[in-house]
C-alpha cells in the first residue's frame, strides 16, 4: 500500500469501515511510514476533539429536569399492545365480515399451530442460510463490508451476551479444538457474536445472534456449502457452521448447547 492509498482510505479507516484485510494492510504501512502515521494521528485528533467539544458544550446540554419530565410524558404514550399502528382494523368492519371471521377461527383452531411452527422453521432456515453466509464471508474470505468489532465493545453497545461470548470456552470431548478468533460482525444487516475455531481440522464458526432459539439443536437444510446446525444459546439463537459432515456438526451443537446457554444466561 502506498501513501496515496492511505490518504484515500484514511476516512474509512478512522470510521472503522474498512475490510479486515485492507485494515491490516493500512496498519502495516503505518508501521513503516511516519508521515502517514502523523496524518492519521491528526485526523484522529480532529475527530476526538470534535467529539469532546460536542459532549462538553454547555449550550447543547439539556435542562437537568428534562429527562424526568420526558419520562412522565412518555409513560402514558405506551401503546396498550405492541401492534402495528399503521393499519387499524375497526371492530365494526370485522363483525360485518362474518365469513372471514368464521374462516379465521377455523384456521386458527385447526391449523394455526402447524402454520406457526412452519413459519418458525422457515424463518430459522432463512437465518441459517444467513449464518452460513457470514461464516463464508467473514471467517473464510474476510470480505465483510463492515469491519468486525471486539466482543467487549459489542457488549457495551448491543448487550451483555456479546461480551460474555468473549470468555466462552467451547468444550471439545476429543480435544481437537483450536481457538482462532472472536469478534462481533455484521452480515446482511444482522449482528453476530462470532467465535471462530478449528474443529477436527475444519474452520468452524459459532455464531450467536438475536432471534427465537429452537428448543433443541437441529440440523438446518443446506443444498451445498457448509453444514449448519441451529442451537439455543440462552435467550439468543446460535448456529454452528462448518465444512464437516452433518452428523459431526449436529453433535458439536449438542455438546455446546448446555455450556453455552449457561454461559450466556
Amino acid at each position, binding site marked *: 500500500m502506498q501513501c496515496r492509498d492511505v490518504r484515500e482510505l484514511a476516512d474509512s479507516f478512522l470510521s472503522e469501515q474498512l475490510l479486515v484485510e485492507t485494515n491490516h494492510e493500512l496498519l502495516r504501512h503505518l508501521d513503516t511510514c511516519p508521515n502517514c502515521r502523523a*496524518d492519521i494521528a491528526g485526523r484522529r485528533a480532529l475527530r476526538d476533539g*470534535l467529539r469532546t467539544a460536542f459532549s*462538553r458544550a454547555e449550550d447543547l*446540554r439539556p435542562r437537568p429536569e428534562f429527562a424526568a419530565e*420526558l419520562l412522565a*410524558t*412518555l409513560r402514558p404514550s405506551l401503546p396498550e399492545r405492541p401492534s402495528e399502528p399503521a393499519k387499524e382494523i375497526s371492530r365494526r368492519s370485522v363483525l360485518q365480515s362474518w365469513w372471514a371471521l368464521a374462516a379465521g377461527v377455523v384456521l386458527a383452531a385447526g391449523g394455526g399451530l402447524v402454520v406457526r411452527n412452519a413459519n418458525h422453521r422457515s424463518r430459522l432456515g432463512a437465518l441459517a442460510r444467513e449464518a452460513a453466509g457470514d461464516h463464508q464471508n467473514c471467517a473464510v474470505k474476510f470480505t465483510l463490508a463492515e469491519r468486525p468489532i471486539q466482543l467487549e465493545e459489542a457488549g457495551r453497545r448491543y448487550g451483555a451476551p456479546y461480551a460474555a461470548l468473549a470468555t466462552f470456552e467451547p468444550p471439545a470431548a476429543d480435544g481437537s479444538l483450536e481457538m482462532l478468533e472472536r469478534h462481533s460482525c455484521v452480515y446482511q444487516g444482522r449482528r453476530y457474536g462470532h467465535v471462530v475455531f478449528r474443529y477436527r481440522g475444519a474452520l468452524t464458526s459459532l455464531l450467536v445472534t438475536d432471534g427465537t432459539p429452537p428448543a433443541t439443536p437441529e440440523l438446518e437444510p443446506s443444498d451445498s456449502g457448509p453444514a449448519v446446525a441451529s442451537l439455543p444459546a440462552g435467550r439468543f439463537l446460535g448456529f454452528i457452521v462448518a465444512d464437516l459432515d452433518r452428523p459431526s456438526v449436529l453433535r458439536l451443537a449438542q455438546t455446546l448447547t448446555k455450556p453455552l446457554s449457561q454461559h450466556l444466561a
Partner: protein
Amino acid sequence: MNADADSDRRWHAFETEAMPHVDRLFRHAMWLVRNRAEAEDLVQETLVQALQSFHRFTPGTNCRAWLVSILQHVRSNRQRKLGRTVIDSAVDERAANVVPFVPPIPDHVTDEDMLLALQEIPPHHQQVILLCDVEDMTYKEIAAALEIPIGTVMSRLHRGRDLLRTALSRRGAGPAAIGQGIETR
C-alpha cells in the same frame, strides 16, 4: 402474562434501551435546530414515535442510531411541512471546488473553535460528520437515517472533514504539524 405485567415489561425495556440516550439525542437536536424549546419538542416527538414502534426495534442493534434516524425523519417531516426543505444537489460539487488543499490543524484549538468551525461548513456536511464522528454511526446507518446513498455519505464525510480543517485553520493562530494533539478547554 396479564396486560399490566406486559405493559410494565415493555416500558422497562424501552426505559433501559432508549432513555440513556436522551442527553446525546438532545445535543444532536439542539445542534440541528438551535432553539431549546424546539429541540425539546423534537426529542419528545422522537421518543413518542420510538415508543409507539418499539416492537420494531431489534434488541442487540444500535439503539442510539435507531433513535437518531427517527429524529432525522421527524425533523425532515417538520421542515417539509414548513416548506423549509432545501434541495441542493450541487452542494457537494461546489464544496469540492472550494477545498483546494487541506491545511494543517492549528496549534491551539478550543472546544469553541471546533464548534464554530463546524458551524461554518455546509449543513449537509455537518450532519454527516456529526452522525459519523460524534454519534458513531456506521455509513450504512447514516445512509438510512438521511435517505442518501452510502457513496454520498462517504464523499460528504471526506469533503466535510477537509472543510472543517480549512475552517479551523482560518481560526487558528498558527499552523502546527499534523498529528499534534488538539488542546481543548
